[in-house]
Structure formats: C-alpha cells, structure tokens
C-alpha cells in the first residue's frame, strides 16, 4: 500500500469526522468511535453517515449504519471499497 495514499485516506476520514461532528481536529483521535464524544451520538452518527454518502458514495443501510461506528472501521471500509 502506498504510504501517501494511506495518509491521504486517513486524513480524509479525519476531515469527514471533523465536519460531520463539528468538533476540532485535535478531538478526532485515530481510534475515535461512536459514543467517545458527546457529538458522536445517534444524531451525530447519522451526520457521519450522510457525509460518507456524499463524499464517498457509501450506501446508507442497516449494515453500514451499524458497522461504520469508528474511525478505523470507516477507514477499513473505504479501503476495502477502493478508496485508497
């Protein structure tokens, strides 16, 4: 895997979480997960999903909503689906 691509994707995931949750970048740690911040509650989670759909074309369905509940899970999903 290309290091730059890895870095780029992780930066995109961090930027997505910053924008969806409305928090400063320093609060979005690499292992951040649903429930770790007050902003990443049920409503925050759906903002994350909607932004994932808009930026990466991720289909919102029961599987993705329940699976993509952390930064690492989002990163892995995007990588597996050709975004890295």
């Amino acid at each position, binding site marked *: 895997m290309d290091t730059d691509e890895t870095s780029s994707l992780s930066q995109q995931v961090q930027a997505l979480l910053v924008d969806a949750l409305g928090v400063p970048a320093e609060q979005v740690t690499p292992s951040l997960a649903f*429930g770790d911040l*007050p902003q990443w*509650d*049920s*409503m925050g*989670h*759906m*903002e994350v*999903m*909607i932004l994932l*759909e808009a930026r990466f074309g991720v*289909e*919102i*369905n*029961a599987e993705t*909503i*329940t699976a993509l509940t952390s930064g690492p899970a989002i990163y892995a999903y995007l990588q597996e689906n050709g975004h890295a």
Partner: protein
Amino acid sequence: MPELEHVFAPTLPIPDFLVGEVQSKLAYVDENIRQAQVTPAGDRITLYLYRPADQPAITELEEKTQRVVLSMVKGAFKPKVQVLEDHLDRLVPYSSDPHSELLARGEISPEAQGIYTLGPLLSRLILYFESLFLELADTFGAEPYRFPTLIPARYLERVNYFQAFPHSLSFVTHLRADLDAIDHFSQHAACEPDGSLNTPPDSFAPLQTLLSPAVCYHLYFSLADRPLPTGKVTATAVGNCFRYEAINLTSLERMWNFTMREVIFVGPKDFVLDNREAARLHMSRVFAEIGLAYRVESANDPFFIGEFRKQAAFQSAFQLKFEIRARLPFKESSLAVGSYNYHQDFFGRRLNITVPDGTPAHTGCVAFGLERMAYAFLSQYGFDPQGWPAAIREACL
C-alpha cells in the same frame, strides 16, 4: 377555477415502505387540507380541501407537499423489518368497526377532535389490561412513580424533542399575572364559532410548559445530573400523554390525549436489554392467554420530516424499537398498542445520568397504550361477552 380536490404526481415516486409515513405527514402541510391520500404505488397524491383554493393557493399547497416528499424520500433506505412474534392469524370472532357501536352505546363521547370521554365498558377493559401490565411490572420489582401531566419546555429542549417531533407538541399557558389582563378576560372571554377563545395573544404568559408527550421522560429527568444511587432503576407509572396529529386524529386509534402504562429500566446496557427481552417474553404469554391477534416487529418513531430520514434509519438499523401491532380485522390492518424500546445511552448522555463506573446509563422502556389496547380488543372480540376470553369476561362484568 377554485378546487376542492387536487391530484398530482410526487416529484419522486414514494416507495411502498414510506407511503404510510408520507401520508401521515401530509396532515401538517396546510390547515386547509381535510384529507390527504397517497396511492399504494406511491405515484399520485390527492389533497382534499376544506375550502376551495385558487391557482396560486394550489401551487403553494403542491410546493409544500413536494417539500415533504423530497425530504422523506430522497436517499431513504428500506428498513429491514424484523418480526419477533407473529400471531396475527389467531382466530378472533369479530370483524366490524367498533367505533359506531361505541358511539351508540355512549362508550365514547367526543369532546373535540382526538379528545374522548370513555364509558364503563372501556374503563373496565382498561383497568383489566392495567392489571396485566402491573403484574409485568411486579415481576421486575418495579417501583411505582407518579409523574406530572405538564413538562417544562427546557426539559424537552435538552433531549432534542423540538427537532424530532415539533409537529405533535401541545403547549400550555395561563393568563399573565396581571390584574388588567385577568379582568379583561373574565369580562370578554368567549368562544368563536370554531371553538377558539377570542382572547388577545398578549394576555397569555410566555410558553414555558407543554403537555407531556411520554411517560418515561419524567423518570430520566428526575435522575439527571447525578450518578444512579444504586446503579440501576426499575420503575413503573401510568400517565397522560399528548401528541397532536391534526387530521389524523380519528377514533380511538389516534387520540390527542391518551394514557400509557410504562415499565422503565435505567442502568447498564445488559440490564436494560435483558429486561426488555424478559418483558417481551412475559407479555407473549399474557397475550396468548387473552387470545390477542398481534405481531411484534421492528419500527421507528414518527419523526418529523427534517429528522425522519436520519433518525428513523438509525433506530431501524440498531433495532431500537419493536412495536406490538394488534390486528384490526375490520380494516385488515394493524394498530400499535405497545412497544419495547431501547434508547442506548441517549438519555444518559443528554441528561448526565451515570452508572457506578462513570459511564452514561442506558435506558429502555416497555409501553402500552391503554385506550388502544381496549379498542383493539373490541375490534377483535366485539361486544358480546360470551365470545370473550373467560378471564376478561370475569374481570369486566
């Protein structure tokens, strides 16, 4: 030419799983809508109006309706319906609509749209079902609570209720503590032909209070901003609930003012989920004994259009709500008479309720609509007690 009925196609076809949800929300589009219908195929909307509307008014109505459709349909995903129990085909002896018979017997007296006084038969049935729900509460050692009918606006603000359910709120006010305003009211207050008071709006105090839309919220607010003393709470209460549903307020199926019995769990995640499941299993046996035709399936709350797509999707994906849907044989349909709910740690976080390890408490409740239970029972068993299950006949006669 002014129209009393307007038919048009939605901007986006409405998928079958959203037809009912969209149709129910069209009630809030405009006060001139008497009835709104969406075809089962989701390709046509008909608005029936109280007063004839000219072309500009029709254009505005259609534009507002399309806003609802777009907001709810665009990007919607089909929820995966999980059925936990299916006893809809249980044999029941009655198939007529009980509404007219209830009216004829004086068992329901409509006071206004969605507001009913109930007579002795319905009241006895409700008392009987209440006894079943209290037995359920006893199996958990639930502590009894009594909650107010009013709820402060700041409480509902704290749990995001205004964003999720603005359409169903019921507001409470009073005359300002001002002698002139009170004197003026006492001398001039009268009802207009439509039933509204003729009082100037500035006679009333600012809106700080609402009628409570749910029972369990009061428990969560009473536990807010401190650790749970014993790490978990099991409570039960019955209370008046208020959800305004505009033109959808028809018969006992949809009332503005109704009562719910709830059993409420607050504590660690497993405690809440295990008890929710135990309650379902208990009630499954109870419903078998009284011969109720019903099913239990995953569902979502009636969020308003802006929040609907997000919140309904989240609720459905995590299987947070299961409804007990009783069969209504007269319309080959079903009615939610109760629900098994899990809120994750939403209230724990929002209200700062913590368990002993410092993490937010999880919450859940099982809730039963008492009027709907009685209505569903009469829809399935009718008015001849000889056809009723023995336990109900003995308890109610």
